[in-house]
C-alpha cells in the first residue's frame, strides 16, 4: 500500500505531470466557473488536450479538470447566483445571500476549503475501497458482471423522479444506440442500415461532447440566461475559513463528505444528487432550519463538501469495475479506453499505478485548487465580462476540435452536431441526457455479459438469474429492481397519503 502511494506521488509530482495537473486545475476552475459549462462539459472540452498525452498523465490531467470544475462552479454560484455546474445549485441558496450582505469573500473561503476537504476525504475512500471492490469483481463470471453493469442502470428512475417514463426512455435509447455497429459476439454489422460509418458503432466522445457542449450553446442561443451580479464581484477578496469556523461545522462537513462519497460511488448518481441530498439532510438535522436559505455558512459547507466528495466516489466504480460513476467519469473512461487502457477489475491488479496516480492527482488538485481559485475569484468578474457571443462560439470551436481529433475525420464532427441537436430536443421535452449517456456507456457491458451468461447456461435466462446457480446475480438484480422501483413507489405512496 505504501509503495503504491509513493509510486502515485512520484508519477504526479514529476515535473511534466505536475505542470499538466496545474494546467488542468486552472482550466477546470475557469470552465467550472463559467455559467453553462458543466463539469462533464469541462472534461469533454479538456479531452482534446489529453489526446496527445501518455495515459497516466491524461488521467491525472482529466481528474484535475473534473475536481477543479466542481469547485470553480461555486464561485459564480456565490457571486452571481448562477451555479457554474448543476451541482453548485444548492450553494446559491446561502452563498448569494451572504455575498449580498457583503460577505462574498467569507462565503468563497468556506466554499473552497470545504470543497478541498470533501475531495480529499473521497480520494482516501477511493484509494481504500477500489482495490477491495476490484478484488471481489475479479471472481465474477459473466452473469455477475451483467448484474453489476445492470446495477448502473438502477439509478435511472432516481435521475429525474418527476419524469420516470421519459428518463427510462432516454436510458433505453442509450442502450439501443450501443447496439449499433459490429455485433460483439458474431462480429457482424448490426443496425448499420448499410452505412460504412456506423460499422464502428456510435462514437461515445463526439456524442457526449455534442450532448453537453453543443446542446448547452444551442440552449443559450435560444434563450440566453442573464447574470445577476451582487455588485461585489469586481473586488472580491477571498477569506479562507479558519480552524475555529471549520470546527464549528465539523458535523456538517463530516456528514456531507460521507454522503457525497457514497452517492458518488453509485453508478449514475453524481455530484448534483450528492449536493442536494447533503443540503436537504442538513436542513432536516439542523436545530435552526430557518437560517438555511438566508445566508447560512453551513449550507455552503454541506453543498460544496458533498459535490466534491462525489467526484472521488465516482472514480471507485470506474477504476474497480469499469462502470463510470457519472457523466464526467464516463468521458474519462472513454478517453482511457481510447488510449488502449482496459478499465475494469483487472486494471488495479495489473496496473495499480492508475489507482495511485488518480489518488495522488486528486490529493494534489484539491490542495492547489484552493490557491488557484482564490486567484481566479479575484479576476473572475473580468472573465465574466466576456460576452456569450464570444464564449459560446469558442465552445463550439473547442468541441469541434475535440470531436475531430479523436480519429481525424469530420464524420465525428457531424455526429457531434447531430447529438447536439438531439440533446436539445431531449432537453426541451425533459428527457434526461444523462440517462441516455449512462445507457450508451453501460450498454456494451450489459449485452456482452448477458449473452455470454445465457450461452454458458445453454440458453436458459432463468438459470442466469436463479439464486441457486448465481446467488450474487440474484441479490444484485433484486437490489436493482428495488432501486428502480423505489422512486416510483415512494411517489405513489406520497400521493396516497396526501
Amino acid at each position, binding site marked *: 500500500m505504501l509503495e503504491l502511494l509513493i509510486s502515485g506521488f512520484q508519477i504526479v509530482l514529476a515535473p511534466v505531470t505536475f505542470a499538466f495537473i496545474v494546467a488542468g486545475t486552472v482550466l477546470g476552475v475557469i470552465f467550472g466557473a463559467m455559467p453553462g459549462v458543466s463539469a462533464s462539459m469541462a472534461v469533454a472540452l479538456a479531452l*482534446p*488536450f489529453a*489526446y*496527445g498525452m501518455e495515459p497516466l498523465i491524461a488521467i491525472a490531467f482529466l481528474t484535475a479538470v473534473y475536481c477543479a470544475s466542481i469547485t470553480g462552479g461555486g464561485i459564480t454560484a456565490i457571486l452571481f447566483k448562477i451555479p457554474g455546474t448543476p451541482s453548485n445549485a444548492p450553494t446559491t441558496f446561502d452563498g448569494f445571500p451572504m455575498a449580498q450582505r457583503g460577505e462574498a469573500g467569507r462565503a468563497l473561503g468556506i466554499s473552497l476549503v470545504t470543497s478541498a476537504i470533501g475531495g480529499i476525504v473521497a480520494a482516501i475512500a477511493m484509494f481504500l475501497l477500489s482495490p477491495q471492490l476490484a478484488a471481489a469483481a475479479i471472481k465474477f463470471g459473466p452473469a455477475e458482471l451483467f448484474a453489476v453493469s445492470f446495477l448502473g442502470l438502477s439509478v435511472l428512475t432516481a435521475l429525474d423522479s418527476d419524469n420516470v*417514463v*421519459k428518463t*427510462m*426512455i432516454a436510458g*433505453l*435509447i442509450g*442502450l*439501443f444506440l450501443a*447496439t449499433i455497429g459490429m*455485433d460483439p*459476439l*458474431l462480429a*457482424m*454489422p*448490426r*443496425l448499420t*442500415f448499410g452505412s460504412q460509418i456506423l460499422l464502428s458503432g456510435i462514437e461515445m466522445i463526439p456524442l457526449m461532447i455534442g450532448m453537453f457542449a*453543443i446542446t448547452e*450553446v*444551442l440552449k*443559450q*442561443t*435560444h434563450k*440566453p440566461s442573464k447574470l445577476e451580479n451582487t455588485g461585489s464581484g469586481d473586488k472580491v477578496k477571498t477569506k479562507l475559513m479558519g480552524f475555529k469556523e471549520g470546527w464549528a461545522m465539523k458535523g456538517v462537513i463530516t456528514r456531507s463528505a460521507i454522503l457525497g462519497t457514497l452517492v458518488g460511488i453509485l453508478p449514475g448518481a453524481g455530484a448534483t444528487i450528492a449536493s442536494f441530498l447533503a443540503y436537504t439532510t442538513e436542513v432536516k438535522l439542523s436545530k435552526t432550519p430557518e437560517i438555511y436559505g438566508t445566508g447560512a455558512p453551513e449550507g455552503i459547507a454541506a453543498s460544496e463538501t458533498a459535490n466534491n466528495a462525489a467526484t472521488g466516489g465516482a472514480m471507485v466504480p470506474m477504476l474497480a469495475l469499469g462502470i463510470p460513476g457519472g457523466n464526467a467519469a464516463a468521458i474519462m473512461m472513454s478517453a482511457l479506453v481510447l488510449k488502449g487502457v482496459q478499465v475494469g477489475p483487472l486494471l488495479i491488479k495489473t496496473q495499480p499505478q492508475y489507482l495511485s496516480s488518480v489518488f495522488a492527482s486528486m490529493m494534489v488538485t484539491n490542495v492547489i485548487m484552493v490557491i488557484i481559485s482564490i486567484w481566479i475569484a479575484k479576476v473572475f468578474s473580468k472573465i465574466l465580462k466576456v*460576452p*456569450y*457571443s*464570444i464564449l*459560446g*462560439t*469558442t465552445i*463550439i*470551436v*473547442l468541441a*469541434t*476540435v475535440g470531436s*475531430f*481529433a479523436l480519429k*481525424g475525420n*469530420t464524420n465525428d*464532427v*457531424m455526429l*457531434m*452536431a447531430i447529438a*447536439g*441537436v438531439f440533446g*436539445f*430536443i431531449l432537453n426541451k*421535452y425533459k428527457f434526461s441526457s444523462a440517462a441516455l449517456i449512462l445507457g450508451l456507456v453501460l450498454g456494451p457491458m450489459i*449485452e456482452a455479459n*448477458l*449473452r455470454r451468461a*445465457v*450461452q454458458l447456461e445453454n*440458453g436458459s*435466462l432463468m438459470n442466469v438469474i436463479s439464486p441457486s446457480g448465481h446467488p450474487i446475480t440474484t441479490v444484485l438484480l433484486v437490489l436493482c429492481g428495488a432501486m428502480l422501483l423505489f422512486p416510483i413507489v415512494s411517489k405513489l405512496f406520497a400521493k396516497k397519503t396526501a
Partner: protein
Amino acid sequence: MELLFNIVLIVFFAISYVYVGATMPKSSDLELGAEQWPQLLITALIILLFVNIYNIYKNTPAEKRHFKSITGISIPAITKSKLFWGIVIIFAYAFALEPFGFILATIVMFAFYAVLTGQKKPSVVALNALLITIGIYFVFQRGLGIMLPRGLGFLRDIALFLESL
C-alpha cells in the same frame, strides 16, 4: 410537437425492429441472439413511448387537445429563430471543415455565430474570430501535435506552410 417527436421515435424504432430481425442471422435456442437483445430494447422502448403519449394526452387540457401545433407549423417563423440559424451554422461548419480547412471554416463560422448571438461590433467579431482561431490552431496543431483539417487546393498549401513554420 412533443407528440410528433414521440411518434417519429416510434416509427424509427419499429423500422429498426424489423430491420434487425431481417438482417441478422436467426439465433439458436441455446443463446440470446444478436437480434434478440436490440429487439428486446425496442419492444420496451415502444411500450414506454406509448405510455408517454398517453401521459401527454392526459396532461393536456381538453381544449388544447388538437393538432394545430403540428399542422400550424410555420416555416417562415422557424427560419426567423436564432436557434434554427444556430443549427444551420453548426452543420455548415461541420460540412465546411473538410473542403475549406480548419482556419477558414472556423473564422467564418465564428463571425456568423458571434453576430447571431448578439455581438454587434464588427471589429470585436473580426478580432476575436481571428485571434481565437489562430490561438486554438497553434495550441492544438503545434503544441499538442493534433492534425486539424487542412482544406483543399491552395488552402491545403497554406496549411502545409503553417505546419512547416
